[in-house]
């Protein structure tokens, strides 16, 4: 399933979806991310791996400016999506986040019904002209998240009543409903059991066809299973980045090798 259609592979070579140039992130006085340069390819899954505290989640959150909600956080360098600098003063983070959706570590459905959870995004962004359109968006998002069969008869029940795995897929459906181009996933399976994890991983693989996906994960096996490219972070530095297979079979850097062979982490 790691094979990509030829057409996409060709375009991936030429244009990247997201490109980060010399990115620095500071928390107050702490220099959390140093000199990160990375190109993220469209219609593919890129995995960020590394030991905890290495800065992979922090870097992920700079991609849709979630760090703006933290007062002491400061970002330098440039990050562009489709060639546009997302930290440009003209960019409204609200519009940016509609384009770059996010799924979090712990499933965090709103304390609303399943329907309202999915409909929330389309409502605030005004994506539906009427109730019928909204129903369609909700249904197709739940379908894409592979949750439709389980949820279609209980759309009015609270989202918090579902199992952990279902909640996480609901959160993914919620993110898809805004029709983003990029989906960021911050350790989406860390709170799930192995069966639920497998389902979510399967889903990620399906979504790759339509979305650019960046996933942060603790588990190297997961990175190997779902991603086409992998980036290894260590102590705030991007150590190595490349096709997943290369990183796991033939790492160039000593630190990467130590990490994937389990010397630390």
């Amino acid at each position, binding site marked *: 399933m790691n094979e990509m259609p030829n057409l996409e592979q060709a375009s991936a070579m030429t244009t990247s979806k997201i490109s980060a140039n010399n990115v620095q992130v500071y928390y107050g006085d702490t220099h959390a991310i140093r000199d990160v340069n990375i190109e993220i390819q469209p219609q593919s899954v890129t995995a960020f791996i590394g030991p905890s505290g290495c800065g992979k989640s922090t870097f992920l959150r700079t991609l*849709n400016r*979630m760090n703006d*909600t933290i*007062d002491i956080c400061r970002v330098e360098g440039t990050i562009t999506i489709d060639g546009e600098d997302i930290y440009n003063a003209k960019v409204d*983070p*609200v*519009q*940016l*986040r*509609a*384009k770059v*959706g*996010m*799924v*979090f570590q*712990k499933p*965090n*459905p*709103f*304390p*609303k019904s399943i329907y309202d959870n999915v409909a*929330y*995004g389309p409502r*605030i*962004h005004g994506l539906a002209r009427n109730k019928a359109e909204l129903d369609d968006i909700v249904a197709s998002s739940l379908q894409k998240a592979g949750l439709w069969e389980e949820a279609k008869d209980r759309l009015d029940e609270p989202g918090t009543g579902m199992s952990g795995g279902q909640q996480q897929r609901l*959160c993914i459906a*919620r*993110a898809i409903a*805004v029709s983003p181009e990029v989906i*960021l996933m911050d350790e989406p399976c860390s709170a799930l059991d192995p069966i639920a994890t497998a389902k979510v991983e399967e889903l990620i693989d399906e979504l790759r066809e339509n979305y650019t996906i960046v996933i942060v994960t603790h588990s190297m096996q997961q990175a190997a299973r779902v991603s086409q490219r992998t980036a290894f972070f260590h102590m705030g530095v991007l150590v190595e980045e490349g096709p997943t297979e290369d990183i796991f079979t033939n790492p160039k850097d000593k630190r990467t090798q130590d990490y994937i062979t389990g010397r630390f982490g």
Partner: protein
Amino acid sequence: MSLFWLVVIVLAIASVGYVAGRARALASVGGDMRDLHSLPSYYGANVAMKAAVPAFLILVVWLLVQPFVIHASISGMIPEDAVQEGSSLGLVMAEVRRTAEGLENAVASGQMNEDFASNARADVNDITARLKEAGQIVTSRITQPVMRAAQSYRVMVSAGDLYMTIVVLLAAIAGALWGIRETTHEFRARNTVERGIRVILFSAALIAVLTTLGIVLSLVFNTVEFFRLYPAMDFFFGLTWSPSFSGRGGSSELGILPLLWGTFYISFVALAVAVPVGLFAAVYLSEYAGSKFRAVAKPMLEILAGIPTIVYGLFALLTVGPMLLSVFGDDGLGIMKAGTAVMTAGLVMGIMLIPFVSSLSDDIINAVPQAMRDGSYGLGATKSETVKQVVLPAALPGIVGAILLAASRAIGETMIVVLGAGAAARLSLNPFEAMTTVTAKIVSQLTGDADFASPVALVAFALGMTLFVVTLGLNIVALYIVRKYREQYD
């Protein structure tokens, strides 16, 4: 012997017991404290505890029961006809106590000797004259039964005090001896003392229950008494409140509805001010304000909560009332007649409740997990959309609880309405008219010189009962909601 010295002597016995117990424990092991089960001080503490605790317990119970017993037996001495028209047994008993006190003081100051004061055959007029001479305030006409009752009252009180002293001292000494006797090197003094301390700690916690019990009993007894004199139906469904103090309140109309209406109307105005302002302030302070602004504004707002209600009462009466009057009064819109009105009291009460609502909502909003906000921001929602559509709905139960608590505050608030709302009980819709509340009437019915046996005074207890039941209901519901809400996110 005065109570003070009795307490001091019991404490002295306890301290001597402490020293003796400690010494005996050490002596039993020949001065080597390693052979004792517990530290020497525990043996001392055991003796002191056994001397003081039962003695003080007896003292307190005695002090509570004695007046009750004496009161019962003295009031039996007063013949029915001694209670004059327009008076009551309660008033006569008060007079008996005053006279007895006068006799006591006269004896104490040496202007009357003991025999004379307690001489049952002495002439009433003679004693009265002598009492007046001694500078003791005495009602003009002390009747024979009152004087006799006062004399035996005095005798019983001093006898009771004497017995109490003896019993308490005996208890203290017996306790101390018991404690010393059981002091041997094997005795587990620490365990005994700790068990004792645990009992003391427990009884301290019990006081909360006793307080509630005291509140309920004092309200229930007097309310039942009131309903014996005044029909409950008329009280709960009467549309008129016009107490009449003449003729023992026989012609009073004591309907609670106008008071309840005033209470709820004023509380409604107060909440209409406090809830939007408090809630918006809480949202701003927790979601928008920078840490510096928050550090200044939050404590400043909380000052409003620390100001005593009497200050707000005065503010309503002397500042807000006249201010409103100048706008809505005869010089302005002409719909307000006096400074004291529902609007005045409600507005000021609203100001008082702003910090109450805002700090409770602040806590509740902060309890909404950050993940919930992140989820919403991650979808591209603005802050206000997140607050309105995610945070507030999630916090709703908690906020409802906070509003209910604020409502119970408003309903139970006294000084602002006593000073700011006026005294007229009326059922009207005009918020610029004076109205009155349950709490204001409790104050006015119980601060006069009315006698406790008349319906116009007893009605205050029925009002208090109503107030207690309403606020208790609100509190229980509110605390339950808030607790359930917190558990959800813990």
